[in-house]
């Protein structure tokens, strides 16, 4: 079995996605469309209330039903993609950005810096995401900003760890040594070899990180530390709909599916991306 799989000639990156990866990619494309041009997919305002349609169950008019204010759940999910994914992206950008700085400084810097940053990473690890989030709420108050900050800070050590070890592996790698032997300068080696080879796996990790950040945002919304209404944000929709779970299941099931599908698709894609480079 192993001989067979090992013998299979490596195909290009996209054909290596497999069926699951293709479905995930297709979902992410639709998601990207919802983020970029929600009005094209759902040319109805996600904010227009219609109390008469409150709690309307799924029907041809409202495929995913309507919420407590008669707003179409499907429309809100489509329009909510931007803020949900946006928050996920922002948090991931912050976490990955911080991780990048720490990881590179730690991986390439002098030993004392590595050791000092190692403690910083440990400290951040010792503060689990929601504990950190609650701490930030106690300091900054609740809202989107603290949520993004909390998720960013909480995920930063993970990225930093991955990057640090990756940077070290790459920097000590034979091809870096070879380039140095060829007389290529430090800066050029960094830009030509170390940075690209470090960032590519980061893209994979960050891809699934976005999915998890969306879930964390939802959890913060549940604890009452979320996004400002009426902007349709999935976590907030899920949190609001959960109250009506026994009478209007569609209000929580569909936003939940949106979150889980997005996170799943991004995770599958992230895993495939990281696998394709290995």
């Amino acid at each position, binding site marked *: 079995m192993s001989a067979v799989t090992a013998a299979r000639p490596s195909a290009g990156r996209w054909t290596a996605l497999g069926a699951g990866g293709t479905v995930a990619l297709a979902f992410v494309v639709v998601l990207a469309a919802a983020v970029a041009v929600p009005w094209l997919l759902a040319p109805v305002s996600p904010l227009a209330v219609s109390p008469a349609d409150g709690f309307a169950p799924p029907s041809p008019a409202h495929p995913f039903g309507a919420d407590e204010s008669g707003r179409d759940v499907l429309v809100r999910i489509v329009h909510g993609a931007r803020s949900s994914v946006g928050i996920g992206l922002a948090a991931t950008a912050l976490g990955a950005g911080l991780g990048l700085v720490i990881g590179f400084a730690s991986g390439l810097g002098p030993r004392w810096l590595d050791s000092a940053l190692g403690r910083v990473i440990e400290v951040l690890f010792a503060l689990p995401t929601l504990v950190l989030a609650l701490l930030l709420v106690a300091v900054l108050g609740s809202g989107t900003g603290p949520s993004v900050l909390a998720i960013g800070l909480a995920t930063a050590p993970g990225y930093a760890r991955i990057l640090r070890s990756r940077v070290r592996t790459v920097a000590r790698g034979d091809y870096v040594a070879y380039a140095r032997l060829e007389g290529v300068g430090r800066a050029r080696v960094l830009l030509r070899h170390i940075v690209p080879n470090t960032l590519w796996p980061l893209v994979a990790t960050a891809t699934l990180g976005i999915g998890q950040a969306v879930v964390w945002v939802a959890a913060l919304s549940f604890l009452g530390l979320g996004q400002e209404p009426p902007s349709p944000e999935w976590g907030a929709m899920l949190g609001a709909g959960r109250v009506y779970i*026994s009478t209007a299941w569609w209000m929580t099931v569909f936003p939940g599916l949106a979150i889980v599908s997005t996170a799943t698709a991004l995770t599958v894609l992230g895993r495939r991306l990281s696998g394709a480079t290995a």
Partner: protein
Amino acid sequence: MRTIRRSLPIAALAGVALLASGCAPSGGAEEATPQSGGTLVYATGDAEPTCLDPHVGGNYPQGLISTQYLEPLVGRDEDGTLQPWLATEWEASEDGLTWSLALRDDVSFSDGTPFDAGAVKANVEHLQDPDTASSTGYLAVKEIDSVEVVDASHVEFHMSTPKSSLMEVLSQQWAAIEAPSGLERGQEENCLAPIGTGPFVVESWTPQDRVVLTRNDDYVSTNPQAEHDGPAFVDTVEWRFIPDAATRQAALASGEVNVVDNPLPADIVAAEGQGISHLDAPRPASANRIELNTAQAPFDDVAVREAFVRAADPNPGIESLFQGTATRSYSVLSSVEPMGISDEELFATDAARANELLDDAGWTERNDDGVRVKDGETLTVRFPVSTNQSTAAEQSLFEQIQANTAAVGFDVQLNPVDLSAWYGALAAHEYEAVSAPYTTVGPDVLRILYHSDSIVPAPSGYFANNAQLSDPALDALLDKALGTTDDDERASIYADAQRIILDSYAVLPLYDQQNHFLFQGVTGIEALHTISTPLLLNAQLTK
């Protein structure tokens, strides 16, 4: 049209009547026999108190639980008329500066020490002591200069200023009487288990989980709402803290708990089909309302306030979100306050009129988002929402109001925040609209909420007059009412005051402060006619 309400809503009355006759008010299909003894489990969705002594601080959660073990001097009947409780008689002097009270002489605290005039004096002084850090109860006794013990069962309050509402506010649970022997133990200990004269005694408190209350076997039936002499029927009350509404409802449905408070509207509606009984007990004093900040632009202009009120159109939302469990209010005061006045006409929805008003007020331009602009300023309304105080349905209603007022060019910015941040926004005057429930007893709440004195902040930045109304005529009326003891005269003065408040368009009344209870496997659940907290004295388990 102006009406002076003198009676409770029919539905609530019917509910109470049914309860009084010993039948399950709704649902309860099976024939269940009430029995004595057993453990009643009550699950509250309100926050867990940090201190069981309602003198300390003084919030509704403390009122809820202390109803079971502490009793105030007076109560009310369903018409809002004061009733004797620990005090049997009360009378103010002609000048309103002295109140004489006669007390029960047959009542003891649960630790055996007697209830007497000395105890009343000790309690008033406890409330006034800065170390107690009392907020709500302190307001009730603020004007009491000194307490004179006449004899064991008679006491006189000497006032700094007249206060006709004194007995009403003393009926609040936050001014309930505790044993001096308990108070003397110091705050840390007293917080864990205050000693009172109520039907139950605090047995133990497991933080975040429950407070166990055991029956006070020596209870003297002083409660005006007691339906029987002698102690309560159930042996034990387990008072549990279940913050999540869906979990609470699941616990009720599965029989883990007997009574829940703060149910969701949908669960109230569904209760009927599940054999679950429902009690609707709106809180007294103020109604739930949105207040517009008259101290700063844009709501310093009455026309803009009227435009907002005309455009808000909350009725369809209240109907669909509360599913018939809440009734639209057109009064500043709760429907249980007999002195409340109501004016539906004033709040009639009229978007055209709203547009006209805004055009006339100079908000003629609109930006790309359809928001009106004047002199470069957008018509922005910052609306901090306390997620602790506003229910999910209420937050949804605010979103609908946001959408409705957006149609005429308002940009309402809802900002759901936790309690600290919410108070912070108010203290910093970073709001144009806000919904702040306030529970006390009696129409004097108008003075607390709308007197210009209430704009002056406490050291924490807190102030009660969120509309920041500052009208000398209104102040004069409210001060005058405080010095008036004749009920009819008071009613008329308060009516004039309410008229001024309503006409200012600084207040958009929504509905009574919602206070529902669902229960199963138990009868005799009712609410105090003072602050509408549940009374378990008459409760009996059924099996």
